[in-house]
């Protein structure tokens, strides 16, 4: 049995490593295949005398190693990455990409982690309710659909308008008041939470719709499954039936969660822009617009790694919560 799990892990690990390398390579290559170069764009931001710009251009091309052939750059890239060096940003020159990400990432985590997990939990819960209660279903389902059908940022705009601008209940910009110093004090935490609510809510609600619908459909399938019929025939109560059905219905949702992480990180981008929330999204966006190879690479590396890690964790988790995975790899077939 143990060897089964080990085999499963080896297989998964191999796939992950391969995926990682390919994904990162693609992300490395694509910006470089595009016209233009980061140093040129860097120059556009320097209001200086033409003479001075010329000097700087050649200096930076050399110092960023962009004058070398592509394959050398590629090798250097991996060498650096394996040393934990993500290079220096051209857009936010001379800040190391690693630092940029380190500073921005906590905000993404603060918004995305709760939004994803809570929307997943609440969505599944609501979906299960809708799935078993036909009356509620006919009322809830359109709402879920409307939620998933809304573009993230539009929803954010509407929320900002109603709750932020019109009713003036919540601040609509930044991660905390511009005048407060981050600290572990009650005031700051309250202030932080106030700023956090709107971006969180807009992501949360839109994501929630999707999960709820997925769960609803899964539940409807599951309550028709043989084992539920059996339980029912043996006089189990509605509650027990739902308990069993829910447990099995949630499994595909777990996989869905892992697979959808990448998409959701991107979805956060527009929301961050609407609320000037200082996450990685806006920075990545700027990096792309400024052809900041190093920043793009770094952000991608982080996103890919976190998606892969999350996937891996979920895979492991899956093997734990779904005995089918565990044993299908021990017995054969």
């Amino acid at each position, binding site marked *: 049995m143990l060897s089964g799990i080990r085999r499963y892990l080896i297989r998964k690990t191999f796939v992950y490593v391969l995926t990682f390398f390919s994904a990162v390579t693609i992300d490395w290559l694509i910006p470089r295949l595009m016209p233009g170069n980061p140093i040129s764009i860097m120059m556009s931001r320097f209001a200086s005398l033409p*003479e001075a710009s010329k000097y700087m251009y050649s200096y930076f091309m050399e110092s960023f190693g962009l004058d070398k052939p592509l394959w050398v750059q590629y090798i250097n890239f991996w060498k650096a990455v394996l040393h934990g060096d993500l290079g220096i940003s051209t857009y*936010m020159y001379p800040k190391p990409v690693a630092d940029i990400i380190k500073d921005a990432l906590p905000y993404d985590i603060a918004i995305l982690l709760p939004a994803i997990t809570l929307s997943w939990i609440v969505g599944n819960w609501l979906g299960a309710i809708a799935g078993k209660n036909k009356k509620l279903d006919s009322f809830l389902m359109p709402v879920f659909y409307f939620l998933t059908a809304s573009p993230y940022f539009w929803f954010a705009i509407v929320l900002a308008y109603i709750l932020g601008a019109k009713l003036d209940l919540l601040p609509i910009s930044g991660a905390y008041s511009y005048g407060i110093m981050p600290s572990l004090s009650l005031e700051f935490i309250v202030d932080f939470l106030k700023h956090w609510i709107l971006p969180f809510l807009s992501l949360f609600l839109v994501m929630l719709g999707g999960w709820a619908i997925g769960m609803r459909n899964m539940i409807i399938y599951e309550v028709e499954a043989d084992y539920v019929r059996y339980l029912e025939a043996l006089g189990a109560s509605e509650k027990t039936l739902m308990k069993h059905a829910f447990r099995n219905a949630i499994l595909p949702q777990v996989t869905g969660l892992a697979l959808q992480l990448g998409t959701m990180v991107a979805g956060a981008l527009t929301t961050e822009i609407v609320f000037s929330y200082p996450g990685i999204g806006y920075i990545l966006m700027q990096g792309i617009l400024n052809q900041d190879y190093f920043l793009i690479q770094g952000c991608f590396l982080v996103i890919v790694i976190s998606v892969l890690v999350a996937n891996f964790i979920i895979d492991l988790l899956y093997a734990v919560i779904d005995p089918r995975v565990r044993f299908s790899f021990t017995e054969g077939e």
Partner: protein
Amino acid sequence: YAQAEELPRNETLYVGGGLWSPPTNFNPLNPSPVTGTVGLLYETLFTYDPLKDQLKPWLAEEGKWINDNTYEVKLREDLKWQDGKPLTAEDVKFTFEIARKHKGVFFSNIWSWLKEVKVVDDRTVDFVFSDPHYTEWNYWLYMIPIIPKHIWEKIDNPVDYANNENPVGSGMYKLYKTDQMRCIWVRNDNWWGIKYFGKPAPKYIVYVIVYSNNVALTMLVKGDLDWSNFFIPGVPDVKSKYKIVTWYDKPPYHLSANLALLFLNDNKTPFNNPDFRRAIAYAINPKEIAQRASQNQVLPADPSGLLPLPSHQKIKAEDLIKKYGWSYDPEKANEILDKLGYKDVNGDGFREYPDGKPMRFTIIVPYGWTDWMEMARIISDQLAAVGIRVDPKFPDFGKYWDDITKGTFDMAINNFGSFISITPWTFYNWILDPNVAPTGEPTYGGNWGRYKNPEVAELLTEIARTKTLEEAKPLYRKLQEIWLKEVPYIPLIYNGAWYEASPAHWTNWPSEKNPYAYPITWHNYWQLGGALVLLKIKPVTAGGGATTPAKTTESAKGSTTPSPTSKDKGLCGPAALVALSLVPIVLYRRRR
């Protein structure tokens, strides 16, 4: 459980508009560090006041040419760094020397005409030139920040040094804290300048990062933002309601900051024909552009393109403009074009080349720069009215920049190097610098259309070497004459020095009526006036001790939402729409 540190509102100034990404770079040798690095933290020898067109001593007490090749700067007494060490002539010398060694320093090209920097005594430095560019030198005098030798001499590569941990400058503010959303400066109470200039009023300056100007507007009207250098659409609409201060109370509301021009590719037929260019100039109506695209927050440009600020106005030759200039006159444009043989032969409403081939151009503007996009569309319309077909195109900035720098465009709008400076020479040098790479290779001047005229080249070098304005004036006249006759590019509008201030917490803002400073906080503009504003504004509530953190803007809350329509109407509209849209869903529910 700790007490949160909240900056006292009445001692804190909230500023925005010059910071677009988390503050990371405080290296003054770098061409684009965080705004305030030069001006608040590091200081220049001189400052420049564009309103009065004066070079004012700052770190320097005075500076003068002691002979044709040597400029001597005398530093003020008791200059000191923020760490208490004295600021001496050695530091000045060091600052310049560093640029000699490191080509990445933004002023390193000076060394192509500077020979050496000599320390005469602690307070005196001599700059010895091999080829003195007198005019250009004036520019550098207020652009080059002086850095402390005792710190920077230990740094290996001063070009990519971020300098974001306790940077030591000489300025009136110290770097206090940075995070993802702002950069906070704290007053340097030991500033050497207090005895010369007084003490700046705000204890803290919070320079905020706001990604979108709608947020800036909200903050401004709520009183959360005191000083904004954002271009904020709609400011005229809400200005009176919220008592927002702008420079002028009437259009254009703002001072001018730079010039947006229509660049023509002077290498391409038919743009290589000055008459053709002139026809285009006649066909374009900058007034309409200013009104439509920029909501009248800017001024239309006159043919000379010289900014409505003293340094430019001083050399402006009105008579030449009258004589050779142009104004919106489509008839005239038609006349010229007809004469040149560009006629509409096939009757499609657009002119063809004399040989009958269809004539069609594009005008490029970066995508997402909505006011410029609108400008491009208006130009396209205006040119269509005289039968020239121009399709507006909106590539992304990267591509736009690639086309512009490589000269592979027909028409483009740009303004990058046309900023106000002590001398119109920077402007002319930027836009007419003949020393450009051939089409297809990037150039980083501003002569995007590759306009070439040997006479201009000569004039530019000569002007750079003139010692006084009087000496330069005839040369400028000649330049203007060429400009007006040849029409290399067409001035469109004077982009504004966007400035909106809230009187909720700070007063005595500069304005047309109280024009004590040029109120811009963008990078490199602190020396032009931003720093002065800090010295002059006053808190509304003079709370000396200010131990109680003033809760933010209780007063401003309530009915602070900017809305021209009445409150309930504003809410009812969307509510009605949402309700309407829910009808099918509700109906659908009913039927089951």
